[in-house]
């Protein structure tokens, strides 16, 4: 009698494994053949918006764009230093010839972030209201966050081909978990006595949600949004593999052709965008929630 199962894992039969893979692949391919077009048309409005927004950023004179961005930065943060820093970064990006790519990336990040917020916050709210939903959603989020991004690019591309929409979907899948998780967490952490007060004065669920839970959860939710933006930026390079234009494509080109400087510059531009988004959203969050933090005196 041989003891080979001790030294070698008793594997499934090769042909069986192959059969499984073939069946699943074929099934999914059939699915995408028959429904791909329908699903694509569902995303049509999104695509049109995406294109419109990208064109808007690309066609507007750079001076106006910078003026608008600086206004937003200043109004959100009320910090001169940050505003000046952003102005210098944008100036350098343009000077080094990365303006158009930066605008493309900016447009897709903005859309992905908005989409993540619009989808993620309601899911987080539902989770916070029910142990069962939380029990279902949490493992899904775990998988979404740990699954290598390349793996779920495959079905998306099979379904929708290469282009902006699959890129957006991939980025959103990758970046949405923090918003969902932290919305759920933030709402669950709301002071029980404040909730009791809300109930004691006869507030209904809607009033409690929007008048008490969401505002008090906002610092946590903002932290989630901030993480989501950062993850979306990180995903931009990977998404460029499936046809998303922007700063990711030169980076990809630099990797395949070993253009170190090209990679570095575009990489730095992504970092600059990340820092701008991060600082501005954090400064805004801090300013908006200055009264939530206990004994802070203005």
């Amino acid at each position: 009698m041989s003891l080979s199962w001790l030294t070698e894992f008793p594997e499934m039969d090769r042909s069986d494994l192959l059969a499984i893979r073939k069946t699943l692949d074929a099934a999914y391919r059939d699915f995408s053949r028959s429904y791909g077009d329908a699903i694509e048309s569902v995303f049509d409005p999104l695509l049109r918006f995406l294109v419109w927004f990208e064109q808007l950023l690309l066609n507007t004179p750079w001076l106006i764009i910078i003026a608008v961005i600086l206004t937003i930065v200043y109004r959100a943060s009320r910090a001169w230093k940050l505003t000046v820093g952003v102005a210098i970064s944008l100036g350098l990006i343009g000077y080094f010839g990365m303006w158009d790519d930066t605008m493309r990336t900016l447009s897709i990040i903005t859309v992905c972030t908005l989409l993540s917020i619009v989808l993620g916050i309601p899911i987080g709210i539902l989770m916070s209201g029910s142990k069962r939903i939380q029990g279902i959603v949490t493992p899904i989020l775990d998988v979404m966050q740990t699954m290598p991004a390349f793996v779920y690019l495959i079905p998306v591309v099979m379904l929708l081909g290469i282009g902006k929409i699959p890129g957006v979907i991939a980025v959103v899948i990758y970046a949405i978990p923090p918003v969902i998780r932290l919305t759920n967490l933030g709402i669950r952490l709301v002071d029980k006595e404040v909730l009791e007060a809300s109930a004691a004065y006869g507030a209904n669920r809607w009033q409690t949600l929007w008048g008490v839970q969401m505002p008090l959860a906002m610092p946590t939710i903002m932290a989630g949004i901030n993480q989501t933006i950062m993850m979306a930026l990180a995903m931009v390079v990977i998404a460029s593999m499936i046809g998303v234009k922007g700063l990711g494509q030169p980076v990809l080109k630099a990797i395949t052709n070993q253009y170190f400087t090209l990679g570095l510059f575009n990489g730095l531009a992504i970092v600059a965008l990340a820092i701008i988004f991060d600082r501005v959203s954090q400064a805004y969050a801090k300013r908006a929630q200055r009264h939530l933090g206990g004994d802070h005196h203005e």
Partner: protein
Amino acid sequence: MSDVLIKISGLYKVFGKNPQEALAQVKAGKTKDELLVETSHTLGLEDINLEINRGEIFVVMGLSGSGKSTLIRHFNRLIDPTAGSITIDGVDVMGLSSSELREFRRHKISMVFQRFGLLPHKTVQENVAFGLKVQNIGKVERLEKAGKWLQDVGLSGYENQFPSQLSGGQQQRVGLARALCTDADILLMDEAFSALDPLIRSEMQDQLIDLQERLQKTIVFITHDLDEALRLGDRIAILRDGKVVQVGEPKDILLNPADDYVESFVKDVNRARALTVETVMKAPKYRITADTIGEALAQMKTLKSDYGYYVSDEGYQGVVTQESLEQALKAGSEESDTKDSVVDDVPVLSTQDLLENVLPETLDNAHPLAVVSEDGKLEGQLSRGEIAKVLGNN
């Protein structure tokens, strides 16, 4: 005579997975500890029966964990009972649908919390207006009303501050104003002053008493502090391990504690600070009503006393003694006013004075001192012997 506003009967609350089954065991005689060990259910409240009258401050007192917070949350059904009925102003609160319950909470009953429960992102004025906002009352109207109540609790000028910018006492005033702003008849206060410093706490108690005098709400006040209970309560219920062990007026609790548990509370209380003159005074014995000296002297003789309290149509006038009357007679005639012979410098006590405050005067005087109500009527007398008896048998 008294008008019952809130009636609770046969109320039980069991916390745990299967409260009904655990309740059956409680009714079969299991104690709180046995229930916890054997079934891991917590007996929160056991067979509570209470009647609370309109316009009174009803205090529920007990040690931490005795079920006070659980009990008070049944009044507005923040907690639902395992068994029992709650009737408020003729309405069966347990029978309300969820939308009826919301209406009931909006208009009928409001609540003040131990750690204030304010919205940190809203201004003080918006916090006070919270109850009205929930009722969908317009912004201008609700803020105006909130402003008025802020003034009433002594916080005008703080309208646009945020709760975190206020001291604890000020924050609780906001909590109080919020509760008053909905014009609810019933105010629930769960250890509302327990988180405050002693000095601030006593200020808040005074303020509550003042407000209550004007507003005549029905207040259910929770505390673990007997001094506070005695100070505020028209009646006090004492809770132990989820059961009511005694209900009564402060003086009943102090002078006739129902069991050792109550006695152990009462032991540490400074009675001089807890009891008012009214609760220990005796009926006035020597009442002189004659308006002329001659008649007054005659009256005193029939009373077999050498002093008396002269009372005219306008109420209590002062102490007259045999000596002062005779002196006045010498100086004038039998027809002179009794009023002129009133002895100067004899202190008068008021019914609402705390014993502590009248101790020196009472001990200084050989005669019992007169006790007078707010509108000047003679209500009773207090001797140093009486005081010694009450304070002595601690």
